[in-house]
């Protein structure tokens, strides 16, 4: 599936038969673009407000040495190639020896000389291949028995990354409900900045809970937006311990 945009790079995508059956090819660019928005941009958002980039846990667990394993795999591949080369050279040498013997039997002059030179060359190549193989074997022996190596234990990291994902899921669900009660479009970043980070006051009585959001220092457009968000929150019918929650704006100079 190739998309040639009016400007920019050509988008070339491919899919397995199951995907072709389930999704029309013309929808592929949109689906791939959605992935970019959901994941690539989602990670950026989670770095900003979800501490996605933070490392947790330095505990180490002993496990197989993967560096040694990779070296061993590479060497084994090289050794197999070297063995194949030696086998080929042995075959070539035997073939050349047969040819030399044939020339001797037939009493060739110049051809015998050529074939003897060829035999010498093949013998030298075989020696080089065997030398190469011996070096590979030496390297393999130098690696020694399989080693163990301390590797980072990712369990704490996984728990905290899960925490970040749960927070992001919750924020998205909250935004979906809030946006359902708003007329304007507001981004999550804007709500975090306008509402979540702002200070205020609260008063709990026996019958209700009142939250005031401090509007000091807000520009008029932001104030209007915050007012709309606050109205949206009121429409969400928030409750705590059975009491209704009322949200209001208030100037609270420092």
């Amino acid at each position, binding site marked *: 599936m190739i998309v*040639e945009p009016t400007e920019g790079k050509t988008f070339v995508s491919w899919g397995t038969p199951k995907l072709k059956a389930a999704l029309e090819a*013309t929808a592929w660019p949109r689906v791939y673009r959605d992935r970019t928005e959901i994941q690539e941009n989602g990670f950026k958002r989670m770095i900003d407000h979800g501490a996605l980039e933070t490392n947790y846990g330095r505990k180490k667990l002993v496990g197989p040495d993967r560096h040694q394993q990779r070296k061993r795999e590479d060497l084994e591949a090289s050794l197999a190639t070297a063995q194949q080369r030696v086998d080929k050279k042995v075959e070539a040498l035997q073939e050349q020896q047969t040819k030399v013997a044939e020339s001797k039997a037939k009493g060739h002059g110049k051809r015998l000389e050529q074939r003897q030179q060829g035999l010498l060359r093949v013998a030298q190549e075989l020696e080089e291949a065997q030398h190469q193989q011996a070096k590979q074997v030496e390297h393999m022996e130098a690696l020694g028995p399989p080693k163990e190596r301390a590797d980072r234990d990712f369990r704490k990291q996984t728990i905290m990354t899960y925490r970040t994902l749960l927070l992001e899921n919750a924020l998205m669900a909250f935004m979906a409900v809030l946006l359902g009660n708003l007329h304007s479009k507001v981004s999550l970043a804007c709500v975090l900045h306008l509402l979540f980070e702002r200070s205020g*006051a609260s008063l709990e009585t026996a019958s209700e809970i009142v*939250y005031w959001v401090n509007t000091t220092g807000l520009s008029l457009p932001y104030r209007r937006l915050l007012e709309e968000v606050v109205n949206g929150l009121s429409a969400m019918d928030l409750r705590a311990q059975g009491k209704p929650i009322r949200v209001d704006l208030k100037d609270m100079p420092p």
Partner: protein
Amino acid sequence: MPLASTQRKLNPPSSPAFCAGRKLGEVEKAWLWTLLYEDPQSPSRLLLDKVAQTHAPLDMSVRHLNRLRRQWQLQRPKGRPRHAPERRSVASGAAVVEMRPRLSSVGVHLFAHWLEQQGAFAPVVARLTQATRAYQHAHPGDDFALFHHRAPTLLRRFQALFFAPLFGIETLTALDTHEHPLATLLGRSYQSSTLTQFLGQLERVGADEVLFPTLVPAQTGQITSIDGHLIASWSRVAMHKGKITMRGRIMAGSQAVIAHNEAGYAVFLASHPLDIHVSRIIVAYCQQVVEATGSTLFVIDRAVNSLAMAAAFAEQDWGLLCMLDDNEHPGLESFEARPAGTLDDGSQV
């Protein structure tokens, strides 16, 4: 304060209109009025003593209070305090239970109330309790604090970890050095040592494996997007830092392979060492995603672009949408293509 939830005014109709003065703000005046309304016979000095014992003491004189009482017509008759026959009960709708004149991160408090209303943490606490019990059963000789935590303690500690990023707290040690409103949000604050121990105990009982089902929403959708996110590890030891490292060097850190559904909700996560490429673990990972969500159509970036991968996915009867590497073709001229149509944005297909 007898207010209906839909009323937009600060005070009830019977109360005077408050405006912020030079000494007292609107909220403080409202609070004082409520206290006086509850007990109009109380002498001003006793009332000030009562205010001084609260979380938000006010800096005001008896004279100023008397002036306000006169203004609100809630002044006490001369003489010793008498018990009014029509005294209100403390539990009346106007009684102030708690007052916080200064509260940071108001939005987070509202968000927390919404989450509580949705019961968002109930499955998490249930799974943590279940994991703890299972560990306790498997290791009867072990004993640590998590075994003895009640559900509210588990909930509060997990909530402390959950809300910390919204207060700008990234590493747990920042709980000791940064001001944060955990006390007003959860009813108590936490030091980093408490939460570090809690996290260590969660790790011990294997919470990293049991919590994932709580991520999966009721409707998962047809298509799952998968991407790996590299998290670089920083240390005081001299090492190559950042995600771009020298050739042959492996970046210190971890790779979080995250799956999202069509609606953008995260549904699965696995952490891997960085020296293991995504293409080596992707089939096993997708198998876990299929088991968790039932979705068999995947969209993955160029990290898994290969014929072998296409064959592996086809063999499992999974759908895979992937992108060809830009370095593999100079443009449209390198393909034998026939036009199929035009997209909405005018691009040629």
